[in-house]
């Protein structure tokens, strides 16, 4: 058991320490109601550190900022960018913006759902390798349809091309 009351390991303790350093650096004044304005910025950092925002992290942020946990949870659940579930090592985002949709991105998404065996915007694959999500426009409409794997953007994707990318990652990871 760590100091946060959860059963996390020392690796997690390090992550909490990193988050604390960031929050302390913001020098929030507990008497200033406007400290809440930093919440989204802090959650972005927390998600960057932990990969997702489980309840322990939300509780921790609430305590650190001295705001109700309900306020943190309300914000986390409102915005698409924040996730309360862990993500796969590779997050495959298929753009379902209008430009990509009319160029057939839904077909790409369906094919990936089939090949990965998971529905979009749900749990990662059982091996923890892939998460499949749909997103709305990355602003590369000239390259529609677009797929983003972690930070790499693939343009003019077809169902076959998307599957090839998955196969390549699987082969690389199998080594």
């Amino acid at each position, binding site marked *: 058991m760590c100091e946060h009351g959860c059963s996390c390991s020392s690796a997690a303790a390090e992550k909490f320490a990193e988050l604390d350093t960031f929050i302390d650096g913001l020098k929030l004044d507990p008497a200033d109601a*406007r400290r*809440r*304005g*930093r*919440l*989204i*910025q802090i*959650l*972005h950092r927390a998600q960057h550190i932990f990969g997702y925002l489980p309840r322990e992290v939300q509780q921790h942020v609430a305590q650190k900022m001295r705001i109700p946990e309900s*306020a943190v949870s*309300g*914000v986390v659940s*409102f*915005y*698409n*960018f*924040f996730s309360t579930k862990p993500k796969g090592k590779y997050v495959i985002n298929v753009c*379902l*913006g*209008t*430009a*990509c*949709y*009319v*160029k057939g991105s839904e*077909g790409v998404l*369906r*094919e990936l759902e*089939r090949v990965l065996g998971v529905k979009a915007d749900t749990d990662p694959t059982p091996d923890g390798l892939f998460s499949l999500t749909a*997103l*709305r*426009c*990355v*602003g*590369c*409409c*000239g*390259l*529609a349809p677009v797929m983003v794997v972690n930070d790499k*953007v*693939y*343009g003019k994707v077809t*169902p*076959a091309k998307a599957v090839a990318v998955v196969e390549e990652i699987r082969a690389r990871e199998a080594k």
Partner: protein
Amino acid sequence: MDRITSKADLMAAYEAAKGKLALRLAGAKTDSGKKDILVCGDTGCLVSDSAKIIENLRAEVKAAGMDGDVRVVQTGCFGFCAQGPIVKIMPDNVFYVKVKPEDAKEIVATHIVGHKLVERLVYVEPTLKAQITDYQQMPFYKKQQRIALRNCGLIEEENIEEYIAAEGFQGLAKALTEMTPAQVVQEVLDSGICGRGGAGFPTGMKWKIAASVEAEEKYIVCNADEGDPGAFMDRSIMEGDPASVVEAMAIGAYAIGAKQGLVYIRAEYPLAVSRLQLAIDQARELGLLGKNIMGTGFDFDIEIKLGAGAFVCGEETALIHSMEGQRGEPTTKPPFPANIGGGYWGCSTNVNNVETYASIPIILRKGAEWYSKIGNWVTERDADGHWVKTVSGNAGTKVFALAGQVNNVGLVEVPMGTTLREIIYDIGGGISGGHEFKAVQTGGPSGGCITKENLDTPIDYGSLMKIGSMMGSGGMIVLSDKDCMPAMAKFYLGFTKDESCGKCTPCRIGTRRMLEMLEKICDGKGTEEMLAELEDLANTIRDTALCGLGQTAPNPILSTLRYFRDEYIAHVRDKKCPAGTCTSLFTLKITEACKGCTKCARNCPVGAITGEVKKQHVIDQAKCIKCGACIDACPFKAIVKE
């Protein structure tokens, strides 16, 4: 570069820097031997390896021993995304398209060293089937007038010195040293510019209201939460010309009496965030942000606030709540953000969109009269010559993100009053893949579709509203005969249902009910009565929802019902999808044209096709997922939709 502490300093910096752009401006002499190679470094082209192209070009130039005369510059977007990555060589005015990293060697050897064209990379105009090197002669650029995008594709994006070389910050200098805040407001009002985020409220009027509020603490906000899927002009401006947003916000702050600026930007645009932050840092270092700007006693600074993925945050009250660290839910207006109690932390706040801001510095520099003469507006002015009201049309230019089934996908900026036909056929190069034009959707999920009959409508806020669509932020999706209109409406409703914040009932529940009806219609389970119910519900939601998102959510349904009722009827009465996209309404069949080559069976992802070699194959309808992979694979066109 030294700190700029007065207007004289700025002008000296401009004189010192303007030579940097000399080769890139029209009419530059081509015989000096000096060249600038411009390469687009926007998100879209970076995906296509433009960073590697730049690296290779620099290495080749160096290897040729020409790095003293030839510079490789990473610029913003040229707008012609369909042909990217683009390499433009100035002052030769040559435009190479679809360049790959390995082409760098040939470009340098043939063009730079050998003074000959690299023929295979020259743009070929699809309708004329002719090569065009001079970009000003390309139909794509001919009818455009780049004002908001004036520096995109001209200056180096990460270098504020080049922005100063492009007469940057001179609008701010003029405002601070020669004009009172009230005069700045009047200038913007007289220019006739309206909010480019979509609603089209006169920017000057917004500033006038904010300026009239007496308060010590005020805020000026840039709405960079470009949520309309399919619109990317704000991203391009922030990536290609971020300093123009910084300058404009400072001008606005001076006009309304704010000392702090905030940019609310979506987290999906990491490159725009970092470029904008860089521009803010560089401006601060030069003394163009901070205390006592240009020695005038004016203090102003800007902070970036990240969004976290919520379409509704483009609505200004929702945006303000999000900046305060709350759920991005809208509140009823009044109070408006400009009112005390309505803005950021209850303070008077003015919110404008990125594209609007990008036009402000040049309006200040060149004057309201210059800007007001662009466009198609007819105005009434009072005895003092001031703008009173617009009889019709609007002033200035608007940027559109042209996408969908059109040849020249990209960013285009045209004067108000340009017709849709000119944009789609002259600039856009017509419909791709030899298909028929069906409609164009403007205004994204809040807008509507425009049909062939209305292609000659001049583009301005009022005219688009009259034909049941709207300007919106500038997304323009071209649809062809292979797009099903009820399915498009279903697509947009899926979006608004997901993005509804849930605060008001008409939007939270209404969008879901409308989506369910559309799903039934597209699944062939709809009835004719359902169409009337759908229309009724759509009208109710339009009248009763709390904010713009809910009020406009029914627009895609109402406008497709208005113009494409026959397609809906085909779905509900005949159970047919004329465009052949609704999978429940067709089956795939293999005809006698099948030669038994087995290609379809090998390409079927679910193993639904069986048959012996050289004999007609069959599709097991129970297994078929109608993905169409067999149609694409069949060399004999033996597979049909029925």
